[in-house]
């Protein structure tokens, strides 16, 4: 279990960051997913852990969005009623801050390779949620179509469609930036 978690934690973190666009929330999501796996499935064979963990992780990401939606509904309600404080964050403002936080800042990111990497990550982050999820699971986590469909809770046909659209969208964005893989 320990080896498995050590082998997936960074990828899981990046996946969560791509989805929620916030390091803190992504860390919480990954921690939550690892806790759930360790608590609920301690006796599962090692071969089953990747699929289980991906299911838990994707559910944790969806839970995060659900909670965020509920929170924003209440925030909107309260601000409409005039009960919200003046410093309540506008979702659009938060979005702008999140985007700004993705600007490469470390010295390593100034290298050409890092720039390509950043461009790729930005392109991945820009994909629609389901397309990104399918792409990540299929090509990064190397799940097959059937396993990806199980994790995403959709048909295998949908997985193929999402993956195809994601690859075309990514290729187009990268080509427009002069990046060829």
């Amino acid at each position: 279990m320990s080896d498995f978690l050590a082998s997936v934690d960074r990828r899981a973190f990046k996946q969560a960051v791509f989805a929620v666009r916030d390091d803190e929330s992504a860390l919480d999501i990954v921690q939550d997913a690892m806790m759930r796996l360790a608590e609920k499935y301690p006796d599962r064979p090692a071969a089953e852990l990747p699929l289980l963990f991906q299911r838990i992780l994707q559910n944790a990401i969806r839970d995060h969005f659900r909670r965020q939606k509920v929170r924003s509904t209440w925030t909107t309600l309260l601000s409409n009623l005039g009960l919200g404080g003046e410093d309540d964050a506008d979702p659009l403002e938060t979005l702008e801050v999140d985007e700004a936080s993705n600007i490469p800042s470390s010295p390593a990111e100034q290298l050409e390779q890092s720039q390509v990497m950043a461009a790729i990550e930005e392109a991945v982050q820009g994909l629609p949620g389901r397309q990104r999820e399918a792409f990540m699971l299929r090509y990064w986590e190397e799940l097959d179509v059937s396993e990806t469909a199980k994790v995403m809770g959709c048909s295998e046909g949908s997985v193929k469609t999402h993956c195809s659209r994601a690859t075309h969208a990514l290729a187009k964005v990268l080509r427009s930036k002069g990046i060829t893989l």
Partner: protein
Amino acid sequence: MNPNDFGNKMKPWLDRGAAAVGEMQATRLKSARLRAMDAYREPVRWLGLVTINAGTAQTLQYSVVQRVLLFLPIVALLAVLAIKSADEMDLGELDAQLLTQELPPDAFLDQDFRSWLGKPQG
């Protein structure tokens, strides 16, 4: 480009991105991993039947055969107790009926019963 080829070419770049996670995030991830391992209890197996983990019964995973084997001793014990109790009840009832002369007259017409009554009781 074939989506599979494209995906395969993206993977090393994504791996590099994951490897380049900042120091602070890496430390947080390690700490999260350790917390998860604190919650993890190595399953204890005994003769392939018993699995004890984290004290939560709902996480126990048994095959059908294992479930049957788990309940077999209890079923056997109950069966033995039931048979013994039925035997004792039959003899007790018969003794009581003999003593109180409540046996139906037809019982004495039964050849086997009469021969059984004639036998010395051990």
